[in-house]
């Protein structure tokens, strides 16, 4: 903002003061022009009187402005004159209603389009996640609330940038930088991904930090500590949302602490002395299954994903040079009753070329009763000496959490929790 003592014509000083007051307030657009004319008329009249009393034009204008009050003194009252207290103290701060008619600077449209794309992608992501239902209901609720808050802030920033608000420009700047950094990081990640929004953010950056937009927002209010925190959290929050939600405890569903899994591997050499027949046995006991969303009944009704057990050789996954073993037999039974809980089997692939890498099967969740012991058995033929293979036995609980054991022939190992189990790499069903 230029000071009152600048070289501008006095009338321009008066008009700029009115603009600043309106830029600090949230006035419905239909009242803007009237109010601006009325405030200017007041300043003009005081200015004239001050000159009549002997002041020069510049000093008279400065005195009129001083008597009228600063934006901080007048604007909050104007906002409250048109809006309720809640709006005036929240959105009214973020979204004053002044929309300049013309003269949008370079980079303005690109920045707004970035916000528009973020909003569209956010809505798409929300819809996909709700439909795909990868979270437990509680976490879905937490995640969705976070995304809705994020979408609300993006929408506010979209409108506030049009209204020359400094906080909206800062938001765009932080987001654009973060997107570019994330895009660069994704290039070095495995697997490599290309983020098109990051590429677009790279295009936006020069305009976002350009002089045109800086001047565009220069008459709006400064960013205090609280608003700065909102902008920063709103800009970077989406990246933290997913890990934060995953890290939050969810007492509504069973977790890895509710399942014990003991795995052993017995290996027998074939007469050829090279290959072998191995049996991997896992004993599982659930303290409970899901309480929500579906419970055991819901699972029986087919509303939830089944649970998966799989056995794979890590060697097969890492370099793909060792041919996977052939499955001879697999079973899943209730030790006490002998009830069969075997649902369907699948083979794991090490790569998109269907190179075999292991075997798995789905457990019928309807057969699982908390407190009972179940025995899962894999009998496999390996084209290696029996003691040359390390097995990996994994239990995947509805893609939410898992237990995993790594063991060699002759070993018995207690499976340990894994935060994000490998998905059952179901390439084709047998």
């Amino acid at each position: 903002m230029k000071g009152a003592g600048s070289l501008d014509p006095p009338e321009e000083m008066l008009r700029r003061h009115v603009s600043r007051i309106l830029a600090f307030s949230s006035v419905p657009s239909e009242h803007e022009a009237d109010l601006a004319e009325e405030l200017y008329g007041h300043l003009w009249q005081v200015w004239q009187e001050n000159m009549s009393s002997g002041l020069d034009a510049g000093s008279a204008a400065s005195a009129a402005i001083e008597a009228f009050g600063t934006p901080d003194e007048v604007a909050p009252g104007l906002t409250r004159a048109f809006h309720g207290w809640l709006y005036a103290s929240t959105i009214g701060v973020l979204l004053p209603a002044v929309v300049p008619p013309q003269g949008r600077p370079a980079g303005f449209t690109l920045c707004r389009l970035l916000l528009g794309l973020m909003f569209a992608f956010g809505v798409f992501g929300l819809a996909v996640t709700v439909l795909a239902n990868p979270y437990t209901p509680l976490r879905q609720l937490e995640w969705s609330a976070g995304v809705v808050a994020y979408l609300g802030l993006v929408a506010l920033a979209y409108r506030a940038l049009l209204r020359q608000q400094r906080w909206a420009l800062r938001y765009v700047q932080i987001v654009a930088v973060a997107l570019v950094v994330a895009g660069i990081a994704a290039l070095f990640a495995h697997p490599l991904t290309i983020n098109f929004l990051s590429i677009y953010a790279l295009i936006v950056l020069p305009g976002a930090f350009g002089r045109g937009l800086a001047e565009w927002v220069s008459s709006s209010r400064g960013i205090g500590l609280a608003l700065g925190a909102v902008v920063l959290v709103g800009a970077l929050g989406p990246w933290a949302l997913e890990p934060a939600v995953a890290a939050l405890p969810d007492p509504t569903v069973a977790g890895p602490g509710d399942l014990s899994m003991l795995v052993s591997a017995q290996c027998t050499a074939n007469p050829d002395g090279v290959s072998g027949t191995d049996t991997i046995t896992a004993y599982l006991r659930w303290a409970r299954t899901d309480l929500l969303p579906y419970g055991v009944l819901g699972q029986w009704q087919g509303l939830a994903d089944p649970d998966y057990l799989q056995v794979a050789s890590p060697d097969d996954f890492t370099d793909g040079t060792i041919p996977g073993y052939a499955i001879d037999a697999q079973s899943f039974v209730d030790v006490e009753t002998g009830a069969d809980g075997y649902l369907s089997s699948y083979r794991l692939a090490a790569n998109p070329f269907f190179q075999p890498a292991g075997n798995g099967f789905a457990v019928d969740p309807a057969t699982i009763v908390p407190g009972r012991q179940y025995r899962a058995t894999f009998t496999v033929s390996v084209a290696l000496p029996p003691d040359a293979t390390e097995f990996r036995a994994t239990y995947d609980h509805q893609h939410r959490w898992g237990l995993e054991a790594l063991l060699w022939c002759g070993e018995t190992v207690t499976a340990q929790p894994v935060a994000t189990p490998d998905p059952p790499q179901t390439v084709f069903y047998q």
Partner: protein
Amino acid sequence: MRMAGHGPGPGTLAGKILELLGIREMHGYEIARSMRDAGAGGGGGHGSLGCEGEVYPALRRLERDCLVGGRWVDIGEDVPRRRYYALTPKGMRVVSGMRSRPAMAAPRGVRP
């Protein structure tokens, strides 16, 4: 805050504006100067005018609550138009009510 029932109190900024408009039709500048001339300005007390610009939010609230009505008046060439305010019938009833009851002391810093 919406004004309930009886409208603004006599000691408030809005009440003083209504009292002034009960005398005659005025525009915002006149109201502000009248209040300053009457000694209501400065001091920051209840119903006082901290700065002239504070008149306009109060006027807009009164207009929103249908206590006053505004109209534009052309003054002349090269002179900005002025928006004159006058009491509505509802505003007149509120002013009559204020005149019939004494001004009540109110906490400092509270405005309608």
